[in-house]
């Protein structure tokens, strides 16, 4: 087999980063990213992109830590380079605060972020409703800049991009040898996976350039994330809610909760509402599957289900997905020994 033809379904952060990783790892392959939506219409474009990872109950902690560290290191290098502005990656310091002492005072990712420590009494005075806090410096990776930056990298190495809605992975069987499924919530249909469900997130993107720190309530429900050209205020976590239209009452609630943490936000202006559906799953699905239909075979690598940790984990899981694709490619290239009868 000469060139292995690889199709990646989905052009959010997973689809694009996996395609880039594959282009670096797998020799003699062609890569085509096929998607219905592209930036700035993907879920990755709505996400604030803060590197503060969630916990996946079904994934071993050491794996999560590895993925997070690989992503952090990858983005940290970009943040300190001349590419930072183009790629939409920046360093932000701030505080995660709790209304009651958390069971885990030091999370698994404490030594991956920079300068992690407990907040001092003086620092906590700023948040009278909160009794405990963590101060650290982490990264923010913004979809609307990062996705085009990945696309540019992909095209630079010969990758192709196609706009098309795929209803069934078998559609790709004729033209491609391996399919990488990064379709997020689309996997309910494309992979028949009922374990994946939306967790609706509504956010406000506002102008408040004086806010230089992130503030996150440990519950994950209220957060203030300053970015390059706006500040993201959030949020909601509505399980099973597929509604993509912003809700005005919810927006009022978000603004009110955020102003309670940071009163200067009363002066925020140019408020825009956005909704994203987190592709949630008890664990990330990162595995090979050989689809079979009669005599037809289609190797698929699944890479989806990151919930609220997409940006935070993307590079680590993309590297692993690329390794799985490489294994598939190897298998295709290795002639099958004829059985000795």
């Amino acid at each position: 087999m000469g060139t292995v033809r690889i199709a990646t379904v989905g052009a959010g952060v997973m689809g694009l980063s996996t395609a880039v990783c594959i282009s670096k790892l797998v020799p003699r392959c062609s890569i085509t990213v096929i998607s219905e939506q592209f930036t700035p219409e993907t879920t990755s474009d709505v996400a604030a992109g803060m590197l503060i990872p969630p916990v996946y109950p079904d994934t071993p902690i050491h794996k999560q830590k590895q993925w997070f560290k690989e992503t952090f290191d990858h983005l940290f290098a970009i943040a300190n380079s001349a590419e930072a502005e183009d790629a939409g990656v920046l360093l932000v310091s701030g505080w995660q605060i709790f209304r009651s002492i958390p069971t885990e005072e030091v999370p698994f990712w404490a030594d991956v972020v920079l300068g992690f420590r407990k907040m001092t009494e003086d620092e906590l005075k700023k948040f009278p409703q909160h009794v405990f806090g963590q101060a650290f410096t982490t990264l923010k990776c913004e979809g609307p800049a990062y996705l085009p930056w990945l696309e540019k990298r992909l095209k630079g190495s010969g990758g192709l991009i196609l706009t098309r809605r795929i209803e069934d992975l078998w559609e790709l069987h004729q033209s491609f040898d391996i399919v990488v499924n990064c379709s997020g919530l689309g996997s309910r249909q494309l992979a028949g996976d009922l374990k994946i469900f939306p967790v609706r997130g509504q956010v406000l993107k506002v102008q408040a350039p004086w806010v230089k720190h992130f503030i996150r309530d440990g519950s994950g429900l209220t957060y203030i994330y300053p970015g390059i050209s706006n500040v993201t205020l959030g949020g909601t976590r509505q399980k099973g809610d597929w509604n993509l239209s912003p809700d005005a009452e919810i927006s009022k609630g978000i603004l009110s909760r955020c102003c309670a943490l940071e009163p200067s936000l009363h002066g925020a202006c140019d408020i825009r509402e956005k909704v994203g559906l987190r592709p949630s799953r008890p664990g990330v699905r990162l595995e090979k599957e050989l689809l079979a239909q009669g005599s037809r075979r289609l190797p698929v690598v699944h890479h989806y289900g990151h919930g609220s940790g997409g940006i935070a984990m993307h590079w680590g899981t993309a590297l692993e997905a690329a390794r799985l694709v490489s294994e598939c490619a190897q298998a295709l290239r290795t002639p099958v020994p004829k059985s000795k009868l």
Partner: protein
Amino acid sequence: MRVVVIGAGVIGLSTALCIHERYHSVLQSLDVKVYAERFTPLTNTDVAAGLWQPYLSKPSNPQEARWNQQTFNYLLSHIGSPNAADMGLAPVSGYNLFREAVPDPYWKDVVLGFRKLTPRELDMFPDYSYGWFNTSLILEGRKYLQWLTERLTERGVKFLLRKVESFEEVARGDADVIINCTGVWAGALQPDPLLQPGRGQIIKVDAPWMKHFIITHDPERGIYKSPYIIPGIQAVTLGGIFQLGNWSETNNIQDHNTIWEGCCRLEPTLKDAKIVSECTGFRPVRPQVRLEREQLHVGSSNTEVIHNYGHGGYGLTIHWGCALEVAKICGKILEERNLLRMPTSHL
């Protein structure tokens, strides 16, 4: 009582406000005027990046340490008010970088969360091997002066564009107490060999991804002579120039290059940042702040002059503590003249 404040930079305006806040309700009549030749945006305060940070070494006058702390705490008390951004005030965190280990600064417990930098943080700055991280405050000169001007105007304080040639002329016309906040130009009213300009030049750029201040130190070259990057509310200030005795008010191309190369080397992400403006200012450098009372004999009466100038590169950092001290001196003057409506012992 008639008070005339000469100077409309941060020192003049904050002192005027402090005096008015403290005494307007306890005096029969209090008239405060501000005379200045330059108002915002043409003052030295407007050029300052506005980061609260004293010099590293202990001041020769220990009161200055106390005034710095009072200023920080005063500003911090405004964080949490919806008006903070109108004042030009916001918390900001960042890095102080050194080429070798140094002792902690005397103000380490004034700022928030002071700690040493970890090895991974230092990896970001290959030219430096030691440093600090802390949370401090930005008080943007221009915004703060606008805010002070609004507060003073609300209180009926009058502003006059006027070049004052002598204390006597002010004493004769209008004032019982003169507050001398003329900054680097104080020598024109009364020679002061200890006062010198510390010329600074800064470049303001559009770099909204920069959320931290980065200040480098080179003990051999001295304060402010090493690159620094300080994010403001809208733009980021790049600097690293300090020239004692240089009165040139125009931007200098060599200084521009020094700043640009130094800051881009420190922070490669700046290379494509768009330049918004460039300006020059004069830090009013003095071995210590001149904050003291002097009596002038003008004709048959005594006019009090309270000097409040010479705050070097830490005017915004120390301003409120000094304003409080001047207000205290005013209080003494009022007591001496039996002008206070309510003696303090009755409260």
